[in-house]
C-alpha cells in the first residue's frame, strides 16, 4: 500500500542504496566516505532510540558504548600488529584483524559494559538516571584517557582496517555498502523488536511504568535488557567508526558525543526507527556545510538546537510522515 509513510521509507532506502553510484556519477566520490560516516552515526542513533524513544530511558552516556566498540577493534588490531599478547585476557592471544571476530566481540564487550552500567543506573529514574549515565560515560572516558597502555589521551592508530572475506574494506564503496547493510539489518531488527511482546513491554514502561509493575511486569529486567541491546548496537557502530577513521581515541566516549547522538535522535524523531537516521544525516550535513562557511559554526548550531527543542519537538520524521508516525515503528 502506498502511504506517505511507505513513500518516505522507500525514498530513504533508495537514496541509501544508490548514493555511492550517484556520488561517482557526480564526480564527487568523497561523498561516499561522508555518507559512510552518516550511516555509522545513524546506527548508533537508532540504537539509542530503542531506549530513549521507545523506553523513555534518557541515557546521556550512550557514547561510552560507541567508544567501547571502537576500542575493542583498536585493541585487537594493535595487538595483532605488534604480535603481543593481550595482558588482561588469559592465554597468549595476540588479537586479530578479522571483522567476523572483531565486530561480534565489540558488540559483546559493549553489551557486558551496558549490563554492568545499566544494572546500576536503572536503579534510579528521572534526572538521576540522566546524570548517572553521564557520569559513568565520563568515568570510562577518563579511564581511557589516563591509561597509557592504549595511547591514553592520544588514542590508537588503527594500523589496518578489519578484514572481511571477499571484500576490500579499503574500497570506499564496499565499505559504504557493508555499513549500509549492517544499518539496514539493525533497523529491521529494531522494527521487529519494538513490535514484539518485548517491545510492547518497553513502550508500556515509557507510557506508564507504575501500571506496568501493577500488572505484574518486572520492569527493571526488561529495561535492563533493552539497555544492553542498545549498548550492543552502539558497540557495532563503534567498531565501524574505528574502521572509518582508522583511529580510536577517548574522544569517542566524550560526553559531547553522547549529546550529539541524543540530538540526532530528537532532531529526526524519537520513538521511530527511521527518524534517527534522518537526524544523523541532517546534523552531520549541517556540520559539514556550516563548518565550510565559518570556523565558528557551533555558534549557529547551539541556538538552532535550543530552537528545535523549544518549538519543533516532533522531529523531522513526524514532519515528513504526518500522523502516521505515531504507529510506533
Amino acid at each position: 500500500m502506498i502511504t506517505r509513510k511507505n513513500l518516505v521509507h522507500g525514498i530513504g532506502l533508495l537514496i541509501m542504496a544508490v548514493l555511492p553510484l550517484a556520488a561517482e556519477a557526480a564526480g564527487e566520490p568523497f561523498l561516499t566516505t561522508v555518507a559512510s560516516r552518516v550511516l555509522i552515526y545513524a546506527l548508533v542513533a537508532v540504537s539509542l532510540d530503542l531506549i530513549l524513544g521507545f523506553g523513555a530511558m534518557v541515557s546521556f552516556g550512550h557514547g561510552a558504548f560507541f567508544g567501547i566498540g571502537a576500542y575493542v577493534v583498536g585493541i585487537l588490531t594493535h595487538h595483532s600488529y605488534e604480535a603481543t599478547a593481550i595482558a588482561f585476557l588469559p592465554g597468549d592471544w595476540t588479537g586479530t584483524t578479522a571483522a567476523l571476530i572483531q565486530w561480534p566481540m565489540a558488540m559483546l564487550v559493549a553489551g557486558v559494559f551496558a549490563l554492568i552500567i545499566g544494572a546500576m543506573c536503572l536503579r534510579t529514574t528521572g534526572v538521576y538516571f540522566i546524570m548517572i549515565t553521564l557520569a559513568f560515560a565520563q568515568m570510562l572516558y577518563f579511564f581511557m584517557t589516563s591509561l597509557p597502555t592504549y595511547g591514553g589521551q592520544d588514542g590508537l592508530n588503527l594500523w589496518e582496517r578489519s578484514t572481511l572475506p571477499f571484500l576490500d574494506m579499503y574500497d570506499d564503496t564496499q565499505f559504504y555498502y557493508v555499513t549500509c547493510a549492517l544499518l539496514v539489518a539493525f533497523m529491521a531488527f529494531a522494527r521487529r523488536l519494538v513490535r514484539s511482546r518485548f517491545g510492547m513491554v518497553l513502550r508500556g514502561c515509557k507510557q506508564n511504568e507504575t501500571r506496568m509493575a501493577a500488572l505484574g511486569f518486572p520492569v527493571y529486567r526488561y529495561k535492563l535488557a533493552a539497555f544492553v541491546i542498545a549498548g550492543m548496537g552502539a558497540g557495532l557502530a563503534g567498531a565501524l567508526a574505528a574502521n572509518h577513521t582508522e583511529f580510536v581515541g577517548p574522544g569517542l566516549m566524550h560526553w559531547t558525543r553522547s549529546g550529539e547522538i541524543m540530538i540526532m535522535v530528537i532532531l529526526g524523531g524519537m520513538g521511530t526507527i527511521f527518524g534517527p537516521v534522518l537526524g544523523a544525516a541532517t546534523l552531520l550535513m549541517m556540520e559539514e556545510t556550516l563548518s565550510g562557511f565559518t570556523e565558528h559554526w557551533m555558534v549557529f548550531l547551539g541556538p538552532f538546537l535550543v530552537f528545535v527543542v523549544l518549538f519543533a519537538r516532533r522531529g523531522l520524521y513526524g514532519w515528513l510522515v504526518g500522523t502516521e508516525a505515531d504507529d510506533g515503528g
Partner: protein
Amino acid sequence: MTLVLFLEQTLNGLQQGVMLFLMAAGLTLVFGIMHMINLAHGSLYMVGAYVAASVTLASGNFALGVLAAMAAAGITGMVVELIAFRRLYDRDHLDQVLATFGVILTFNEATKIIWGPQALFLSTPEILSSTLELIPGAPYPAYRLFIIAIGLIVGLGLRHLILNTRLGMLIRAGATHREMVGAMGVNIDRLFTIVFGIGAMLAGLAGAMAGPMLAIEVGMGEKILILTFVVIIIGGIGSVRGALVGAILVGLVDTYGRAFLPFILRSLMEPSAADSIGAAVSSVAIYLLMAMVLMWRPRGLFQAYGD
C-alpha cells in the same frame, strides 16, 4: 612524614571540595526549586573565570576581578533564564538537557570568538601568594586556604539565607508547594529568576577563584560540571546540605585517590604498572564512590526539602 603528607592532601581535598560546593549549591537549588537540570551551569563558571582574568589583568586588582566575575555570571545567568530557560521549567528533563546542551555549544563558541582559542593564565594575587605553616613542616599556599575560607563563608551565608530570610522561606516553600507560593501572591517568575541568578553568581565566584589555579580555557566548565553532577547525585538532588557533604566527600576521595593510590599499588606490583594503573583507577575513584552511594541509597544521601 606520611602524616604531614596526609594532612596536606586533606587540605587539598577540602579546597577542591569547596570549589565543587560553590558549583553544586547553585545547581542543586535550581533543580530543587525549578525541577530543572541545567547543563550550562559550567558555562557560567567559565564566564566567571574569563571575566575575572580580563578584569584582573586590566585593573591589576584581583578582588575587583572576582566581583566583576560574579556580576557577569549572575547577569548572564538571569538573561539566559529570561530568554530561554523559563520556557523549560515545565518541560521534561530530556528537553532541558538538550536545550542547555545547545546553550553550552553557543557559550563555548562565543567565548572562542571573544577571547580567542588560546588559554589565559592568571597569577595568584600578591597578598595571597605566600605560604602559611599551618601544619608544622609543611608550608601551605595561602591562596588555597583563602578558597577554603570563602567556601565556609558562602556555606554559612547560604544557610542563613535559606533558614532565616524571607527569600529563603520562599525558596523552601517553592520547593515543596509551588502552587501555594503562587497562590500567596508571590511573583513566582521573579523568584525563579533570582534563584537562578544566585546560582549563577556562585558559579561565577567558583570560576573566578579557580582562575589562578588552572588554565582558563574553553571546555573548563564541562570538566567541573560533570564533577558537580557526581556531587549532587551523591548528596541528593535539591539538597544544599547534601551538596556540601557530597562536595567535601568527592574532593577528599579524588585527592586521596590521586595522591595515595599509586603509592599503595606500588607495594603490590611493579612500579611502572602501579603508576599507570594507579593513575587510571584514581581518575575514576569518585565515580566508584558515586556507584557505591547509589547502591545504598538510590536517591542520594540527603532528601531535598520537597520531593
